[in-house]
């Protein structure tokens, strides 16, 4: 047997490694499902909680199928709020970070206010905004933005400051404009930092959007949870939770995946 044949025989390490690779994808999806449902059944059979507190998974799936139109409709509302809030959080966060770097005095002026806003309980912001501009789309998006911009701001600012001063000397000796330094040096330097912030803000946007809907809205997954709760329909609440969790996980995965491809600090093959 030649060496090459040996590599492809069913018992060779290369071959087993290949099988492992092939199984990796499905295993990544299957293992979480097994562990989540396993834990779920375990709690049902070992605790005496009533079924509207912790319903059977099959009832939840049934409810998901029965209520798919309702859930889809409200899911789309939530997605819009979370999506718009996420984008605005980035616009505000990255924009402020750029302002702070190019005009240091602005940092002293704005940062205390930003920290204050970040530390006000969202319940109060929601209440004030609802009184001021009503319980519509704008209020919900504003709350998601306010809740999400801070990690983006702090990380982007740190990233823009992370530039090696020696590289700034290099740019200066070449008489590069401030704009060139910003676009070609500072921004790329901050990409790993901005990506890290997206993983936080992305999931937070969804959670906050649902929370706000739960409080004030007549649309969105938060509202459906509210309805399910009031009707003691535990299955519906859990069905929504399932949708939200899958959605949140998907968003996180997409951001993480895109992030790894854009992140020069972790990627040598691009």
């Amino acid at each position, binding site marked *: 047997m030649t060496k090459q044949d040996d590599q492809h025989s069913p018992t060779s390490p290369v071959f087993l490694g290949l099988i492992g690779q092939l199984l990796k994808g499905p295993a990544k999806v299957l293992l979480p499902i097994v562990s989540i449902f396993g834990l779920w059944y375990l709690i049902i059979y070992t605790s005496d909680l009533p079924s509207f507190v912790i319903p059977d998974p099959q009832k939840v799936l049934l409810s998901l199928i029965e209520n798919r139109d309702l859930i889809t409709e409200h899911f789309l509302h939530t997605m819009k709020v979370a999506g718009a809030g996420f984008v605005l959080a980035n616009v505000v966060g990255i924009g402020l970070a750029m302002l702070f770097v190019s005009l240091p005095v602005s940092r002293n002026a704005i940062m205390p206010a930003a920290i204050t806003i970040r530390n006000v309980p969202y319940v109060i912001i929601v209440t004030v905004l609802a009184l001021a501009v009503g319980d519509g789309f704008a209020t919900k998006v504003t709350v998601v933005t306010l809740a999400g911009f801070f990690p983006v701001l702090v990380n982007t600012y740190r990233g823009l400051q992370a530039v090696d001063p*020696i590289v700034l000397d290099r740019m200066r000796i070449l008489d590069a404009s401030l704009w060139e330094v910003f676009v070609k040096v500072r921004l790329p330097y901050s990409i790993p930092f901005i990506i890290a912030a997206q993983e936080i803000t992305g999931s937070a946007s969804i959670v906050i959007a649902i929370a706000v809907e739960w409080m004030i809205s007549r649309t969105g997954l938060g509202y459906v949870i509210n309805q399910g709760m009031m009707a003691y329909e535990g299955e519906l609440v859990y069905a929504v939770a399932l949708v939200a969790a899958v959605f949140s996980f998907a968003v996180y995965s997409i951001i993480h995946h895109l992030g790894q491809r854009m992140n020069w600090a972790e990627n*040598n093959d691009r």
Partner: protein
Amino acid sequence: MSLSVSIQGIGRKFGSMQALADVELEIEAGEFVSFVGPSGCGKTTMLRIVADLEKATTGKVLIGGAVPKEMRRQKKLGLVSQRPAVLPWKRALDDVKFTQKVAGRVGFPADQLLRDFGLEGHERKKPSQLSGGMLQRVNCASAIAHDPELLLMDEPFSALDEMKREEMGEWFARELEVRPRTILFVTHHIDEAVLLSDRVVVFSASPGKVHEIVKIDAPRPRDKSFRETREFIEKTAQLRRTLFHDLAAGA
């Protein structure tokens, strides 16, 4: 094309500390001049003032008859720093091209330059994939990619281990024959200064000023064998005496 440098009565104060006082120095076009001296003698500050990266408190610098800022605007200056100023996300070839893009001038074809610098086969590697010596070569290539007429080098080989450092010095001496230009070179290493320079300027500390200028007349090209000549040994010894005896005693 190369540029002359005229340093006229340069002084620099940091708070109450006089880092440089009354530095006078005329550097001819195409000349290689090293600055050596004890730490804190202001040799790097002097280089940065010529580069227009720092302002002098008194005096002025003229490069080819113009102020440094003007020469910087015309992209006629190049800078090699001790730590490589490469961009961590750029491949070697792209990093060299980056200089040319920002300067708006292709001095030397980037791929040719890297090949001449012994980096053939490494053009598509990123900084994290290159060794210290190779990285410093990329750094040098990026610094002269736009063909600056005055090259300022701040301890470019000091971060390398001793063997690598000597090797890089010899390589750079050969490179000088191919692409000659005016060079100001800050170093801690006497042998490096003697090997490469036409003149070695010894700075004394607090305040930093020119203490002695040693001329190295040996013909070029100079290579490894120059290290074993009488002139090399004598000049090295002379500089050692000045640095370790005269200046140490004064301090």
